């Protein structure tokens, strides 16, 4: 298990970046992942970027527009991205994270994920096994796009 991580991802130790989320946001995307099973679900988290940290405010579920193999792939319509970004901008927020589920697969980025990822975003992947979530992790692509680096998830009850 650990060896697999070494290929695609790396633990960044004390230099880890951090994403701060409320339990409500986490519950929303886990519920979405379970509802969409056996297909992959996808969504955005809107929030704020800081230096080595981002803070989530809201989860927005979007439609997986992949027609052919929704159980193994997800695709977000660019127009949906555009509209979501406009909405975020209007509210003084940014898209900080892309969330998606891996039905019956681990919460670790695939080679396909890496080829389609952007540095800067957080990527939360949740593993849904037989319709029930088992785990989730957050990842960030490094600047040279060669690997994902694990990110710390800090859960808070609610924002003060």
């Amino acid at each position: 298990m650990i060896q697999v991580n070494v290929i695609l991802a790396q633990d960044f130790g004390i230099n880890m970046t951090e994403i701060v989320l409320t339990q409500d946001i986490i519950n929303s995307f886990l519920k979405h992942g379970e509802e969409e099973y056996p297909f992959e679900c996808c969504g955005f988290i809107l929030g704020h970027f800081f230096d080595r940290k981002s803070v989530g405010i809201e989860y927005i579920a979007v439609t997986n527009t992949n027609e052919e193999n929704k159980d193994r792939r997800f695709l977000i319509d660019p127009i949906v991205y555009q509209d979501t970004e406009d909405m975020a901008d209007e509210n003084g927020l940014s898209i900080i994270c892309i969330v998606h589920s891996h039905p019956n697969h681990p919460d670790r980025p695939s080679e396909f994920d890496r080829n389609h990822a952007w540095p800067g975003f957080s990527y939360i992947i949740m593993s849904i096994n037989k319709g029930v979530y088992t785990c989730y992790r957050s990842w960030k692509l490094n600047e040279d796009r060669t690997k994902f680096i694990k990110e710390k998830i800090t859960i808070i009850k609610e924002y003060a």
Partner: protein
Amino acid sequence: MASTLKIPSPLRRFTNGDASINVNENSIREVLNELFSKYPDIKKHLMEDDDKLRNFVNIFINGENIRQKEGLNTQVNNKSDIRIIPSIAGGVSDLTQEELIRYSRHLSLPEVGIAGQKKIKASKVLVVGVGGLGSPVSLYLAAAGVGTIGLVDFDVVDVSNLQRQVLFGIDQKDKSKIQSAKERLNNLNPLTMYNLHEVALSSENALNIIKDYDIVIDGTDNFPTRYLVNDACVLLGKPNVYGSIYRFDGQVSIFNYNKGPCYRCLYPSPPPPGLVPSCAEGGVLGVLPGIIGTLQANEALKIILNIGNLMVNRFLLFDALAMEFSELKIVKDNNCVVCGTNPTITKLIDYKQFCGISKEEDDKLEIDEISVYELDSILRKGKTPLILDVREEHEVKIAKIEGTIHIPMKEVENRLDELDSNGEIIVHCKSGARSAKICKLLMKHKYKDVKNLKGGILEWSKNIDPKISQY
């Protein structure tokens, strides 16, 4: 009026947080160049080295993707809404969670990795002969995750197989080899598909069976099948991973791959029948097929993964007693009758005939048989027919029927003067196969009253005299 170019949030790190810039130029390419001159660090995230747009970057102008228009040459009119939109996609690995765990030691090898394991999963390998060689070959290929393994054999498990055929156990005695093999392999790796071909590979069925596989592993124990496998592989363009064993010596090579030689380039014709004894006659060290078979499995995996230095144009010799590996260089023979530039064999032939085992001649001679019960009753009546034991010396030491004459199979033809050509002769061996050959030999030499003891000494031990050891 200026148009606006909107920057997606992950790239705003490079624009001091600006969400959009105003642009004036008149093509997307010029708009981007304006962006890059202002914020140089952003360029590598959008463009390939050859100045093409990266494939996960979309640029939309007024709600339309420029890839559906004129690409970077798409014209920008006044007040256009230009967007850089990340293509947001992803998905699971092509290996399942179970596979990722099962093959994790492969995945951590850079030479295999996920891409290599996918190749292994997609591969189809045919194992011809599920015996001493086929056992380790199929066990290791199944363990490694070969997606489809075909098994060819029509024999049943004999207790004497267990000295080296590690696929089987005592519970499978007298059961079908490939059925037993499937049970064992399925337990080792249920993710592999096993195709069972419970037939004797023949000129009639070989092409049809082999055509569906990527690689053929030769685990045969006789020359007709070995030439058949070779020729079928050449005709179908399949690599043939060859292995053979005899007593303490083993051989490994890859034939018919990457313009290398085939088996016939090396051995254009088979040895005369009877010159090279089989493992049953000559014996084989039980560990030897384990060593040679795993080397075959190793070469098959390297072919699948396209890694390392293959045994093509190379012929490995292993001497288990001296504990020596040596290697011969071998080359393709352009005059080879099957893989040369002007082949004369363009379809499969009669391989038994080719190897000097004439079927027709064999069939003409009908051998008289005698059962162990008949022999027993003759002996009880006090008669003393000549019983000829044609087994090897070491076998006689394990078990013998009292009152027999012993002449090893190979020596019979030179010692005919010891046998009366007019009297009755009953020939026996271990199970009846070798003695049948000797019956035919005697009949050709005009012996009139020759009978084969059906089932050999094994049958005798089982039904007449249990004190005689079975081996």
